């Protein structure tokens, strides 16, 4: 099976992320399924950034620590990643910055400055030389380079191509990649996929304050706001964010917010208001290493329990944790629809690995605009915003509708939305809100809320969530294990998970946190986790490490 790993490294400011994305597109255009991981510290210039781009015949979501190609923009790249190189690793380097690829390495230098000077090209085009050189070293046809640069470097296509061609012509093909018979597919980061999914689900307004690793969704939606016909607002802070979003929802617009742990803290009071006032809202919470500011550009899965219970009082909520870009797109749309159908907050819970990782998706991912409606008021006055119903769901109306007096209220309130302190009404309205859990659980039962993969007959299962899907799948298939990945985390799909547990004797939870948060949640539903592999250095656990850990447990 075809499988290739390319690392590109340099300093922050060298454009490693975009150069990596071009490498990913080259692999995409020769038919590979692609996954890219981007690693960077929290600084703007300098330091060390790198991306690992992996291409494979099958869908992937992780990178092994064995490299086929290293594209080194500086010496540090070679030094830092030498442990991932084998003798046959092809090293391509910027000859202005790196003297040699090191002893016994198959290295080829590109005289970037000379090329740029020759073409009168600006420094910013240096990476095109690297890309061109890589394409040649990997035996990728020049046509493919042309197609990729055309599609993905909007400015100065011709000059970029000239620069790339110079490097292409100077290098030799050392590790030719075979083409795979797939058409190129859209490559999406997790956050882009979430944005598309939200728009599919009817998004009207996105409100967000920048916070890594959620910011790229703000940037993506801001960039396309005119095309998508949405309003994007970046207000003074996260408190304003959630309350503006609730204002949009009240006005009849579908709104979503995005943040990470620290910003989410500031939203919890507004969240509880949404719970009491039964205002729909979608929240992207993209996890990073905590507590507090922690490692702002590194990953974690340590906010699940916080999100489960965030905000004072008790009220229903939906939490979905997709495992890759395709799932992000699919479940973000569902989150939008369920929030509005049940008039509840719905979370899309991701992490840095997923939000900023790049994945191959499938054109089939955008079939239709699917907007599910909450039942609407039919205009028969008096309108009762909180009319009780067996489902707990009241009819919706929005300001501007004739004769509707729409009163939403964060106090305990009666059916009309007027404040009450009455004991019996308190019970009635609390029950009304909490009854939505049931309908929601039933509704979610209709969706594939639990992924089951790997060996169906295995007696050992890896239990995982979110972005570790990719690495777990790969290790499971190597060891003949089953993988159970609940995507819906709340309401917890206990029945589906238990069904998936059929034949399983041993459950190993894999989580990127220090306390085993999914294991705790599963245990509460009677699913016993036998072992926990917990990883919390901010980096996604690598297949090698997971393999070793699983073998340590299983043997």
């Amino acid at each position, binding site marked *: 099976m075809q499988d290739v790993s390319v690392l590109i490294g340099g300093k922050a400011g060298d454009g490693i992320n975009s150069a990596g994305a071009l490498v990913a597109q080259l692999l995409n255009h020769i038919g590979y399924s692609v996954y890219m991981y981007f690693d960077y510290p929290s600084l703007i210039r300098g330091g060390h950034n790198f991306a690992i781009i992996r291409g494979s015949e099958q869908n992937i979501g992780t990178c092994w620590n064995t490299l086929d190609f290293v594209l080194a923009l500086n010496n540090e790249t070679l030094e830092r990643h030498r442990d991932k190189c084998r003798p046959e690793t092809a090293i391509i380097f910027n000859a202005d910055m790196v003297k040699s690829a090191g002893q016994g390495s198959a290295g080829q230098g590109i005289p970037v400055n000379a090329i740029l000077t020759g073409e009168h090209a600006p420094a910013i085009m240096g990476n095109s030389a690297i890309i061109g050189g890589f394409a040649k070293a990997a035996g990728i046809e020049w046509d493919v380079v042309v197609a990729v640069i055309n599609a993905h470097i909007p400015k100065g296509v011709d000059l970029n191509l000239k620069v790339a061609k110079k490097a292409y012509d100077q290098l030799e093909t050392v590790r030719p990649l075979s083409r795979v018979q797939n058409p190129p597919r859209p490559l999406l980061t997790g956050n882009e996929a979430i944005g598309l999914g939200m728009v599919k689900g009817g998004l009207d307004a996105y409100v967000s304050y920048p916070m890594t690793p959620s910011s790229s969704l703000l940037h993506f939606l801001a960039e396309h706001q005119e095309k998508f016909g949405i*309003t994007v607002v970046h207000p003074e802070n996260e408190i*304003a964010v959630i309350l503006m979003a609730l204002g949009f929802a009240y006005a009849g617009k579908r709104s979503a917010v995005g943040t990470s742990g620290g910003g989410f803290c500031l939203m919890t009071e507004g969240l509880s208001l949404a719970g009491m006032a039964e205002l729909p809202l979608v929240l992207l919470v993209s996890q990073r290493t905590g507590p507090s500011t922690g490692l702002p550009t590194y990953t974690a899965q340590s906010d699940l329990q916080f999100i489960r219970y965030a905000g004072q009082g008790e009220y229903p909520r939906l939490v979905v944790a997709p495992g890759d870009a395709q799932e992000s797109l699919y479940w973000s749309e569902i989150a939008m629809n369920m929030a509005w159908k049940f008039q509840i907050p719905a979370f899309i819970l991701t992490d840095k690995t997923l939000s900023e990782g790049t994945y191959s998706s499938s054109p089939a991912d955008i079939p239709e605009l699917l907007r599910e409606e909450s039942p609407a008021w039919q205009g028969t006055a008096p309108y009762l915003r909180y009319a009780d119903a067996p489902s707990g769901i009241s009819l919706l109306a929005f300001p501007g509708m004739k004769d509707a007096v729409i009163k939403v209220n964060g106090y305990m309130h009666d059916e009309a939305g007027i404040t009450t302190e009455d004991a019996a009404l308190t019970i009635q309205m609390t029950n009304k809100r909490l009854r939505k859990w049931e309908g929601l659980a039933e509704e979610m039962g209709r969706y594939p809320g639990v992924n089951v993969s790997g060996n169906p007959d295995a007696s050992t299962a890896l239990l995982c969530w979110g972005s570790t899907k990719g690495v777990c799948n790969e290790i499971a298939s190597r060891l003949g294990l089953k993988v159970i990945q609940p995507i819906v985390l709340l309401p917890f799909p206990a029945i589906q998970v238990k069904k998936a547990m059929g034949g399983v004797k041993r459950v190993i939870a894999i989580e990127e946190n220090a306390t085993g948060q999914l294991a705790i949640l599963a245990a509460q539903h009677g699913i016993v986790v036998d072992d926990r592999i917990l990883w919390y250095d901010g980096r996604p656990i690598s297949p090698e490490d997971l393999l070793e850990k699983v073998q340590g447990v299983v043997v």
Partner: protein
Amino acid sequence: MTGRQLITDAQNTWCPGCGNFSIQHTLKNVLSEMENEGKSLDDVVLVSGIGCHAKIADYLNINTFYSIHGRTIPVATGIKLGNPNLTVICCTGDGDSYAEGLDHLIFAAKRNIDITVIVHNNRVYGLTTGQYTPTSPLGFKGKSTPSGTAEYPVNPIELMLASGATYVARGYSKKMDLLKKLVMEGISHKGFSFIDVLQICATFFPAADYYNPRVYELSDHDRTNFESACSKAREWDYNSDARIALGTFFTRSLPTFDEKTGRHEERVTDKKQSLRDVFLQKT
């Protein structure tokens, strides 16, 4: 709906003599006047925070969003951006908008979002039984400051002028005609309107005897002149003894945030196609 019953059946629980009655009465009059002039009250939304003032959301029979302490203004901003055809009025407290959520007030002014903010400024936390607020005078003895505060009050008029508010006024709950005029003006003003209302708290800050001899209505004042608005604003600093100007300090016409932001919705013809385009661009 015309001739709508403007007061709900909710039991009113303000103290006897509370200035909130006057504000409610004023709003009721303003609303019926708007209705008489052909405006549909279906298009009006009132947003409140939490505090005595905020109970007005229960009492007025119009669209209301009874939000949380300090967050009236971002809610109102979201509503206005969500549907710019709505007339959005905030009834907020001095604890609400000068303490807990002061930043939102300043940003609303800076953005010139077209909402009208009425601050029920009783210079005390009413509902939590009488602690000092940012506009209480220096030395105010409340339950959290039994030997008197150590802070000068802020001057919200000055702060709003410095923040770029395009309509800045001060009313008084005992001058209802003027108050009505200011609220009407604030609502018709296209842009951010700010009205600080000196509201009598009969229980914790019964300041009528202080205010009555000092208040006067601004006249001969050029409300388009920023400098003189500032000096009028500084005449009384909410602390030391001085004449207290009522009326409109400043007004100015500028494009509003809701005009400039959003409304992309109206420009998109085929959302599905846009989605497909952006998606396929990633290939």
